[in-house]
């Protein structure tokens, strides 16, 4: 088995011409009397630095990373669209790059003519296109419209035709850049089938995607790019986990910063804000009000290790911890919590009064814990409301939407609440369970 793609110490530097953004003219260049000087960049930006990896012939290789991490730059260099600034890239065999579907289509002429011209652009001969023409049209499901001008195509038809031509170039190395993110489910499945067929036929695939499930399912090897450098390389599962860990820590940072900001914004003078009127769920604004006779000085979500966090996996145990302070001895008090999703829908709400706790007395500093054995919410961002008030509703301290947290899940199920569940099948139904994560 040989090497299909060899990348060694690849660096790609983009040059920004900041001052020419405003005076992008020949005149200013001439006035300065120096055309070449004008072409000198003010700022350079490394999209890729020191990237080295090999892709074995017949394997599927995935590249993941957040936006701007250099994935597309890498693919463009591999496709030969841009040149490396330094380092070497070697691709063995015919390459087809699915970077933008139907990039070369001319809107005014028919689909049929575009197939031929696009095919020639992608390196096919006229004979090869004639041989594959019917197959291309059939794959794109455009038999009826192939003689209509492409400008009249729907965007779906356009993409189908673009994909069909590119995939029928029959490359040895297929480069795919996130093109599967567009298109309806049916089309995506069809493309995935075609890609699987490619793998079976021993072709090399290099895949750039945000779909981590796809990476784990398809890839033999993966790299995670961040800031133009390879962070982790190797087994897809390992790479995806490392990437997710970083995503989580970034989310954690962002949520913690947002919470700090929100709490700071509303921790001014007590009673500064009246209790707002009940609004529609989608208009739940952040807020804090109440007399502060009992003050909630801190609200935190604790993970199983007892440390405050903002990002959880679904099904994890979670504890809401409230730190409270009262100025005197209070005899009538209720503690409540509410969890809302990003749409403002109440996922769950309860308080000590509803659950028939009877307040006796409270003084000084204290702590209230609300423990959940399982956080059974589907993936998404949620807001925590916490409150201390009297049984008649007179507010001591009310925090609305000040505390946000995120629930992540590998299973992309729908709704709000995920009850613990299992599937059962009778013996005549043959179905493969998901592989254990």
């Amino acid at each position, binding site marked *: 088995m040989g090497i299909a793609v060899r990348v060694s110490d690849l660096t790609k530097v*983009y*040059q920004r011409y900041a001052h020419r953004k405003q005076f*992008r*003219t*020949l*005149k200013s*260049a001439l006035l300065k009397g120096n055309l070449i000087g004008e*072409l000198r960049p003010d700022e350079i930006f490394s999209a890729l630095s020191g990237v080295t990896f090999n892709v074995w012939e017949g394997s599927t290789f995935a590249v993941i990373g957040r936006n701007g991490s250099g994935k597309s730059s890498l693919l*463009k260099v591999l*496709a*030969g*669209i*841009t*040149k490396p600034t330094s380092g070497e890239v070697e691709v063995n065999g015919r*390459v087809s*790059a699915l*970077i*933008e579907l139907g*990039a*070369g289509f*001319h809107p*005014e*002429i028919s689909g049929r*003519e575009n197939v*031929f*011209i696009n095919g*020639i*652009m*992608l390196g096919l*001969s*006229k004979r090869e296109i004639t041989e594959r023409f019917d197959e291309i049209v059939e794959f794109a499901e455009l038999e009826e419209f192939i003689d209509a*001008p492409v400008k009249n195509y729907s965007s779906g038809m356009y993409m189908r035709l673009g994909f069909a031509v590119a995939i029928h170039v029959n490359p040895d190395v297929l480069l795919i850049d996130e093109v599967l993110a567009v298109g309806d489910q049916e089309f995506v499945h069809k493309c995935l089938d075609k890609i699987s067929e490619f793998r079976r036929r021993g072709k090399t695939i290099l895949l750039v995607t945000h779909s981590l499930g796809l990476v784990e399912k398809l890839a033999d090897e993966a790299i995670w790019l961040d800031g133009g450098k390879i962070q982790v390389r190797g087994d897809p599962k390992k790479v995806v986990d490392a990437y997710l860990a970083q995503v989580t820590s970034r989310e954690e940072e962002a949520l913690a910063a947002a919470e700090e900001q929100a709490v700071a914004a509303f921790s001014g003078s007590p009673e500064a804000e009246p209790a707002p009127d009940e609004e529609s769920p989608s208009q739940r604004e952040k807020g804090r009000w109440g007399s502060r006779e009992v003050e909630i000085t801190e609200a935190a979500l604790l993970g199983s290790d007892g440390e405050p966090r903002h990002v959880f996996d679904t099904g994890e145990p979670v504890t809401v911890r409230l730190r409270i302070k009262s100025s005197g001895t209070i005899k009538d008090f209720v503690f409540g919590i509410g969890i809302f999703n990003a749409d403002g829908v109440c996922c769950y709400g309860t308080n000590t009064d509803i659950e028939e706790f009877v307040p006796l007395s409270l003084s000084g500093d204290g702590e209230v814990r609300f423990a959940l054995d399982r956080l059974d919410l589907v993936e998404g961002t949620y807001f925590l409301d916490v409150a201390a008030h009297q049984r008649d509703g007179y507010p001591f301290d009310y925090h609305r939407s000040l505390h946000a947290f995120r629930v992540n899940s590998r299973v992309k199920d729908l709704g709000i609440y995920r009850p613990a569940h299992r599937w059962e099948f009778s013996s005549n139904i043959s179905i493969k369970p998901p592989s254990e994560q």
Partner: protein
Amino acid sequence: MLKNLRNLFHYRVLIQSLVVRELKARYRGSVLGFFWSFINPLLQLLIYTFVFAYVLPGRFQVEPYPLFLFTGILPWTWFSSSILEASNVLITSGNLIKKIMFPAEVLPFVVVFSNMVHFFLGLPILFAFLVYYGKLHWTLVFLPGVVLLQLVFSLGVCLFFSALSVHFRDVQNILANLLMLWFFSSPVIYPYLDISPSIQRWLNYNPMTHILVGYHQTLFTGSLGHWPWLLAMSVGSVVTFLVGYAFFDRLRDTYAEEV
């Protein structure tokens, strides 16, 4: 650069099919379609004839003047539309350069060749007039040589301007005026021999002067008196082409990032 030049030969199918696409797409949707390739030069001819035969009559010592005019307008139109289109072809086709592995030099070639096809479509009309006025000369056999000269020269100029306009978008605006000046500095509406020698000396620096005189002599007057100039121009066009190509090649790697 030599390797890239050799590659050009491999792109001939691509260039050919893109030229066909260009021609098909240009008049798609218009009622008269392909006839515009004939009608446009005819309309131009009418306008110039109106001005120089009726508004300002008797200016130039050529008969029939409209035919003379037509002999020059056809190749000039090929030249000037090629340059104008080439000056933004890399930008309008940015999608190709950025999204697929595409040899950028193909684009100015396609511009020049598709305008050449329009020029060829105008030729039958020109020939019809030449026959009508009894102006067919044996010197016609040298016409392909003049056409080739113009083709090579235009390619060089178009490669240069298409590359330049990627970095300086205002090239397109400058060109519109430059071409106007160029038009009046070339013997299209006036005969080369009618101008005073002192001005002729300056016009001789303009390569298009000699190419147009070439057309006038092979088609209209039936003389070959200008051949030393044309011989010099054949070297000049090849040099122009190589310089234009070298400039284009030099900036090649910047297109995908700049357009």
